[in-house]
């Protein structure tokens, strides 16, 4: 089992980024689409606005994850972006 440690340690940051991009990105976009409900417009329009914007959020999150200098910073950035969205979503939940 010792021979797996090296390769796993090297692959871990990339794997972490892939997870952050695929799932973290989607989660951020989904969160954004719910946060949009806090916008000052009628419910149907807010729902649609959230959907429309979500893909831009997702793409931006993916770009961030791979542009960040480390996997840790990638995750930190996602969480930092999620915080205000979480606040907004919480207010309408």
């Amino acid at each position, binding site marked *: 089992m010792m021979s797996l440690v090296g390769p796993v*340690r090297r692959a871990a*940051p990339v794997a972490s980024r892939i997870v952050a991009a695929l799932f973290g990105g989607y989660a951020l*976009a*989904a969160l954004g*689409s*719910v946060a*949009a*409900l806090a916008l000052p*417009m*009628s*419910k*149907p*329009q*807010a*729902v*649609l*606005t*959230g*959907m*429309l914007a*979500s*893909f*831009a959020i*997702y*793409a*931006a999150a*993916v*770009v961030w994850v*791979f*542009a960040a*200098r*480390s*996997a840790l910073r990638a995750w930190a950035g996602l969480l930092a972006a999620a915080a205000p969205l979480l606040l907004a*979503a919480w207010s*309408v*939940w």
Partner: protein
Amino acid sequence: MTTDNVKRERAQRPAGRGIRQSMSGLHIWAGLLMGWILYAMFLTGTVSYFKDELSQWMRPELAHQAELPDPALVAQRVADELGAIAPGSPQWSMRLPDGRTNSVYAFWRMAPGEAGAAPGRRAFGEAAFDPTTGGKVTARETLGGDFFYRFHFQFHYMPVLWGRWIAGAAAMFMLVAIVSGVITHKKIFIDFFTFRGGKGQRSWLDAHNALSVFGLPFHAMITYTGLVTLMALYMPWGERTAITTPAERQQLTAELNAFIQPGKPGGQTAPLASVADMVRQAQERWGQDAVGRVTATNSGDSTARVAVARGEAGRVSMSPQYMLFDGPTGRLLETREGVGAAAETRGVLYALHLGRFGDTVTRWLYFLVSLMGTAMVGTGLVMWTVKRRQKLSDPERPHIGFRIVERLNIASIAGLSVAMTAFLWGNRLLPAGMADRGAWEIHLFFAVWALTLAHAVLRPARTAWIEQLWAAAALLALLPVLNAVTTDRPLWHSVAEADWVFAGMDLMCLSLAALHAVLALRTARHRPKPRAVPAKARGGVIGGALEEGRS
């Protein structure tokens, strides 16, 4: 990356190059992992801009429509027919013919408990109707151009939801590939004007860049709007959170489409008032040829209602505009022509993707730029192998990853052309009375595609490319001949009658045949150039000097 690696890399690279490197890697991976699926989506999407013409071509029994029949009368005829074949149907809907279709496509919901519909489960019937008689068309059973259209966003042989999710994932990868491609491409404007021919990988890169950059507004738009068309599926969370009552759901749905939901049937029969009159009122409001769709709920019941919706041509939005009539009396209940801002934005984006608002010139523009987008994906995939081939330690025995990409490229690019043409050949050759004929045309498509994959694996790669491109060229070139032999609508007839659907189809086949022939010839003539590699990498001063002298 661990911090040690990061420090070492930053010491080795000049500062500020990091993001272009990382975006280049992201671009290559995002493009490669979904490239084959994206190529198929792009090509089937491209031909879908002419799906109505394709459908006409695939039903040669239906005569060329020189002039449009009166939409009001057509609507009445088909409404009567639907009343006869689907009595008690909670909802039916028909699409009126326009300049590009010569049949009426309609679908209807089966009444609960009707034969074939399990209780509680909704089942739909669908058919194409003759506008002049109202009866079902007596043309060969085929899905027509709608096969490529549906494949484009939901593929086949799988539940439609799975297909749409795969398409959505592919579209997200495409969006990321576009964004990362732009970021990595710093000299985006200079490189737009650069094409260095005959330089192997450099030429492929230039071609890829030119195709990508020139059509960039389109590619970015088509990708984002593609996601928007199915956004309710991909991002339902806001809706799930905010829309909780049926009334709220109804409010949201009304912003998105003109489908009126049937209420509970009253139980008293009442014949539908004149549908033709309803359509005429809509024509007065929007224009003679501006009526697109007629939908009825609980037709034949006292609670029946009819919605006449505006057509898609001539307005750049899919947001619903319709006139709602009371079924039994024909009285106008409501005219709906506006939706909220976000809904209208979604309507415009949806319309931009479908391109149905356009006239012929616009449609051709869409087709050509979309074809460029297809070539963008294709050149990207090929470039991957061209680039990697230089780096192979033993070109005779490439590693498994390279081999997989190389063979999938052949079947996904050249093979798809062969398969799509085979689909059209099947349309002309399969017997008219054959059971499930429409399904078998599709089986043929996939069988031929699978054969091209087998061929791509069994033959040497370069030979496989050339043979498949020639096969596509031959099948395309002979399709007009096959058409002339198996139908009474050969090219010279179509031109003489100004039937530009059939004539255009034949001419398009010949043009595409020429394109594939050119590609086959260029591939046959192409000899991969060895890249000038530094001597020490090539393992010898003499070897290195020889290499450097050659290119």
